[in-house]
């Protein structure tokens, strides 16, 4: 009952956020200097005013802004995200084509960074002050300071060019005609470098957070109670500290979901990964605004859903939330 009410409340709030994001982006993009019609016309080699006006009418750009916004929002409600200016394909089709690749990449990177980050953080906290602790934290500090695209290039340099272990580009071997398991394996092989590259920065963040969080929880009174009960240290960490310490990490990680998409723009560019990050970047360069807006809409929805799921999970795991919420 309570949880249902909470879900309804959160959903309506989430919907509001998504609409807000769409309107914000729409206004931003349409108020910005640079007219997509003239860009397109220029590329077509026909810069004359008549052709440009014709293009503007075709895209609805001659309408007042609020009419354009209204038309767009109405379309979004029915799942119609408009047509790409460039190749006259429905935006929704373009995005759906590319979305799985990005979800695969960001999902793998998310799990990779969360699992590795928490594991390393726990290790460092448990062995606080030891060489292992210093090594882990130094590593985290370095990867926290390294630009993602540079890690990507260095990884390619070492693992693809010098060692020739892993493929440097694309999502699968082009023209190999693989199917079934062979194809899955091939994709997994291609996935390793981008996942690790995208994930390392976040791994560093989660490692640091986990360690700090555990050390903080270890100072709390109930840990002292557990010791007074005669509970051994390893069990205290396992049964008392971990759950209390990791809850906030999950919240933080879910809030970072959007940042992973930002990182995907870079990763997909370097590794020629056919996802929506690259789609967005290409659309931006070509002033293909419907595609750009579509990508932002989809990203916002994904981020909002991730946050929602995280919130709901949190309510299941933490008994206190229901009373406070």
């Amino acid at each position, binding site marked *: 009952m309570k949880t249902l009410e909470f879900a309804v409340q959160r959903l309506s709030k989430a919907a509001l956020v998504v609409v*807000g994001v769409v309107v914000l982006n729409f206004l931003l993009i349409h108020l910005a200097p640079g007219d997509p019609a003239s860009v397109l016309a220029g590329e077509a080699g026909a810069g004359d005013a008549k052709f440009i006006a014709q293009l503007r009418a075709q895209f609805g750009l001659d309408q007042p802004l609020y009419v354009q916004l209204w038309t767009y929002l109405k379309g979004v409600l029915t799942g119609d995200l408009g047509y790409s200016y460039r190749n006259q394909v429905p935006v929704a089709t373009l995005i759906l084509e590319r979305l799985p690749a990005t979800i695969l990449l960001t999902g793998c990177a998310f799990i990779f960074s969360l699992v590795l980050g928490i594991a390393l953080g726990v290790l460092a906290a448990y062995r606080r002050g030891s060489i292992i602790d210093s090594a882990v934290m130094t590593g985290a500090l370095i990867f926290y300071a390294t*630009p*993602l*695209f540079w890690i990507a290039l*260095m990884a390619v340099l070492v693992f693809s060019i010098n060692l020739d272990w892993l493929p440097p580009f694309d999502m699968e071997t082009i023209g190999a005609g693989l199917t079934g398991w062979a194809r899955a394996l091939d994709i997994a092989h291609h996935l390793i470098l981008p996942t690790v590259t995208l994930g390392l920065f976040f791994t560093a963040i989660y490692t640091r957070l986990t360690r700090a969080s555990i050390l903080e929880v270890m100072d709390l009174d109930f840990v002292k109670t557990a010791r007074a009960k005669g509970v051994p240290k390893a069990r205290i960490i396992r049964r008392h500290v971990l759950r209390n310490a990791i809850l906030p990490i999950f919240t933080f990680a879910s809030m970072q979901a959007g940042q992973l998409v930002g990182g995907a723009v870079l990763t997909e560019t370097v590794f020629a990964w056919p996802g929506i990050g690259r789609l*967005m*970047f290409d659309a931006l360069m070509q002033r293909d605004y419907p595609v750009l807006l579509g990508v*932002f809409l989809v990203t916002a929805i994904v981020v909002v859903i991730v946050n929602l799921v995280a919130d709901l999970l949190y309510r299941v795991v933490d008994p206190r939330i229901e009373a406070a919420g």
Partner: protein
Amino acid sequence: MPFFLRFARNYGALLGLAILVLVVMVALLAPLLFPASPWQSVGDPFLAPSEDPSYPLGTDMLGRDIAAGLAYGARVSLLVGVVSTAVAVVIGVTLGALAGFYGGRADDLLMRFTEFFQTIPAFAMAVVLVAIFSPNIVSITLAIAVVSWPPVARLVRAEFLSLRSREFVQAAIVVGQTGPRIMLTQILPNAISPIIVTASLMVATAILTESSLSFLGLGDRNMMSWGFMIGAARTMLREAWWMSVFPGVAILLTVLAINLIGEGLNDAMNPHLRGRKG
């Protein structure tokens, strides 16, 4: 000066400070160290490091000096990092302070607004802003500022919210001080250390963002930057590793140094017994 002593006891922070001072010196002295423009071809193309002693870090495919590029690139990185952070801090502190102090409707509205910005991936947003407003140093700086203020606003709001109910603030209300005065003289001074720590870490993030933008070709065309150098070296990875390795190391060291300083500040400003036991 217990603060400086506490800071100086942290070797990491001192190391960071040393590196940062070095980077700042190089940035300031770039025109003296390398009188020629970093865009100018000065030597043979593709000189490997130490192949020619005049170009210890080698040259790129157009014979431009990598070392000169690094020195001039430091200017862009530091400039964008510091200015964008300053702008973001001003926005974030203002909105966060208002939301946290006045609460209620104002708080709801401002926090919803902040949430919008947090739902859009920061880096993607920066890319769009820079691309739409044509890439130059001003648009890059502002774009980074626009995407980085929300965490500051949240932090400052939380600080103001908790400090507002503290007894010394209640006392200030009781003796008849006005709202703005209380915010400026009672609350802000007590919220300043977390703001400074966050700001220092934001400078580091801003440098990373700037380099990522230039890497994607969204840098200022008139200014040499580290990200641009790596972007240009991308296709030369096989032929000239040094073109991408050295600028990357420069970014890494600078960002690392600033993070170390930020952590040192954090430790020095928040000794464990801060607050009631202090």
